[in-house]
């Protein structure tokens, strides 16, 4: 188990990734997740080469049938010849920081297909429903030859809208029978959708969810926002395959808008801006964490003794931390 002999430098992995070698792709994603400084140069190289794939963000409340739908959708995409990468993001346990990542189980139909890559990621305290390295993983898969990349996140509240700032096309999934007729509204996800999907349409109560959602959209909740694209509502059943042709058309249609329209161009700039800000935030947090570590105890004791208030001491701590770099 000599670690030195088996360690492959990240830069060496880049060509192997470009050749579509799965173990190299997988390892590079691990290094991106770990935030290894050694991997930064390679990730930079990868970013330069990336940008071809259609990135679909897919979100919905737990129990909406997202994973099963992703599985069926991936099978359709495969039938068109596209290689499909899936990044399934699940929340980490707030207590232990660990996680059980269960989405793969609902995608077992894809488990033998070499043209499908599934990667599970834990949010690890990252807000917004995405993991820190999700976008790195997308780039790596892009360079690895995956033409469509689906990011699946659990939508539970307002925070989950991050997905819309990362994907070319955002799909919001609702399901009948989960209590609230349209969970997307409650979860604040109505506005972010480029495509709405109502899953489980083999159920008798699905019709109502469909009509409610359509009505809600025509009522024009920010109706004028997307003039070049009219947000469709697609009813599907992963059980009997209903609606997937329509869904494929909707995705293809939106892809054209996303890639070739002015709106799409602006969106891509916004995505880049978001990526840049997030990355900068992370760098800043890392630097701050490193720099303030030796000072924190002293500041905490001063606060405890009421030698200052939280606001002024925090200001001092920030100033002192960055003074050191």
């Amino acid at each position, binding site marked *: 188990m000599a670690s030195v002999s088996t360690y492959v430098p990240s830069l060496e992995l880049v060509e192997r990734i470009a050749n579509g070698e799965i173990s190299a792709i997988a390892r590079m994603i691990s290094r991106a997740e770990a935030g290894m400084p050694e991997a930064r140069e390679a990730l930079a190289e990868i970013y330069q080469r990336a940008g071809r794939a259609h990135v679909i963000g897919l979100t919905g409340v737990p129990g909406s049938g997202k994973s099963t739908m992703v599985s069926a959708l991936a099978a359709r995409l495969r039938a068109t010849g596209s290689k499909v990468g899936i990044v399934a993001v699940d929340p980490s346990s707030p207590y232990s920081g660990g996680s059980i990542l*269960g989405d793969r189980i*609902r995608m077992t139909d894809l488990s033998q297909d070499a043209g499908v890559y599934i990667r599970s990621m834990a949010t690890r305290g990252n807000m917004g429903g995405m993991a820190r390295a999700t976008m790195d993983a997308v780039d790596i898969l892009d360079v690895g030859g995956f033409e469509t990349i689906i990011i699946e996140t659990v939508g539970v509240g307002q925070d989950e809208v991050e997905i819309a700032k990362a994907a070319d096309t955002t799909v919001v999934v609702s399901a009948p029978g989960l209590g609230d007729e349209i969970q997307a509204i409650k979860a604040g996800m109505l506005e972010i959708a480029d495509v709405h999907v109502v899953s489980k349409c083999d159920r008798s109560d699905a019709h109502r969810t469909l009509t409610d959602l359509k009505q809600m959209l025509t009522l024009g909740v920010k109706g004028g926002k997307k003039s070049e694209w009219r947000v469709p509502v697609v009813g599907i059943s992963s059980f009997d395959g209903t609606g997937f042709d329509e869904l494929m058309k909707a995705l293809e249609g939106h892809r054209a808008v996303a890639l070739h329209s002015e709106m799409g161009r602006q969106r891509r700039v916004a995505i880049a801006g978001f990526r840049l800000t997030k990355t900068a935030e992370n760098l800043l947090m890392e630097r701050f964490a490193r720099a303030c570590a030796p000072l924190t105890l002293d500041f905490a004791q001063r606060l405890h003794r009421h030698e200052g208030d939280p606001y002024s001491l925090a200001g001092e701590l920030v100033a002192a931390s960055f003074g050191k770099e």
Partner: protein
Amino acid sequence: MRDTVDRNVLDPSAVEAVREQERDWEANEVAQFLAKQAERKESFLTLGDFPVKRTYTAADLADTPIDDIGLPGRYPFTRGPYPTMYRSRNWTMRQIAGFGTGEDTNKRFKFLIAQGQTGISTDFDMPTLMGYDSDHPMSEGEVGREGVAIDTLADMEALFEDIDLEKISVSMTINPSAWILLAMYIVLAQQRGYDLNKLSGTIQADILKEYMAQKEYVFPIDPSVRIVRDCITYCAKNMKRYNPINISGYHISEAGSSPLQEAAFALANLIVYVEEVLKTGMQVDEFAPRLAFFFVGQADFFEEIAKFRALRRCYAKIMRERFGAKNPESMRLRFHCQTAAASLTKPQYMVNVMRTTLQALAAVLGGCQSLHTNGYDEAFAIPTEDAMRLALRTQQVIAEESNVTQTTDPLGGSYYVESLTTQYEKRIFDILEDVDARGGTIKLIKEGWFQQQIADFAYETALRKQSGEKALIGVNIMVDDTPDPKIETHAYDQTTADRQIARTQRVRRERDPAKFEELMAQLLEVAKDDSQNIMPITIELVRAGATMGDIIESLKTLWGTYRETPVY
């Protein structure tokens, strides 16, 4: 006759007098003793987390009506399903066996019968249990390994060669594919000229607990329950002595549940099956007398006895009050018991004999109708002949030497056991009420509700073993570094798969393809129509040389398969 007014063993003034005695005893004798030496633990709990008092008195029977205790063979059957119990006939000693091909297991059956076993119980290999033929890729390495491999009627013929099926009862431990095995059994009986109404025995066919616990399932829940319904109605009309189902708590327990969950969840499943059959228009008294049960014998001796007694009482009340049964036969719960495999350990494996003995004794004092005692080597592999013989001898010692069989329900009237029985009854009904309030068993299975509770208790148990709170000799106490004597384990015969596959392929070659295709088409038609019974066409198919895999794979195209969302 039963009086409808609730009467208790003691009148209220006597209860108060006993309580007064108790208080006095706590204040004097107990307090003085505790002052000198504290008890070993702050609180004492059963394995299933019921608090246990320092001692029990007649006052603890205050809320148990005497009619709920009753007499053996009389409603609500707390004290036993039959009035004379083991004074008439001992329980059926039914050691489960199965490995290799039909021929291999047939030899083991004959060995066990020669050793004094009085019933047969068949264990099938994983492919048979899951509905795969032996030559299916998923079967690789598993053919005849954990049980006997059955693909076709020819295998069934070999399995029961020279065994008189009108004379010995045969249990088949199988679930999603059970109805096909039953069909083979029927055809075999017909070929031998037996009277179907004289056959006794059972298929397990309790599919709901598979989704809850053991995870041997093929189809989604709805068609699976329909198959169970079809087995029950078919047998009610054609096989008067045959138990078409064995509603099983055993596997719920082995998956990690508490004894209370085992009991309550099994009864929740019972309710679904009864409701499904009633929907066909059949009356409850037409089929309920042949419903049978299967429970584990766990380590907590008195708790297990109370569990069995409470189960009989709950079942009687459910059948009479909820389903309006009139015939007492519909209200008496009969059960097979197996000692707890998950309680056996590898270290100091001979200690398993003692564990099994105590568990078996609890089953007998709890009034079981048949019993399997585990081999001491089951934490290694499937049992050897030697281990099985010793396990059978354990039952024979209890039956022939201990004299516990001379009176029925010898623990009836025990303050502790009666009190625990009543507590179990109450808690079981609480859970059943909760299940109803939450929308019923099938909905809750789909939501993982039962699975989560089982997982929670399993996790808790693992932590208690780790902390030593749950003692386990040889594992967390009395650990002995002396190496255990070398154990001979059952060796897998590497030629099994080849022998088995050769026969299956021969059957496929020799059957009439036109007839086979025609019947397969009929099968799908019957399967599509929920109002039809699937048994008759299945019987014709296995007679015509259809394999189990043929039938299952074809139905998968119609019904799909079940995939669970696991809980942790």
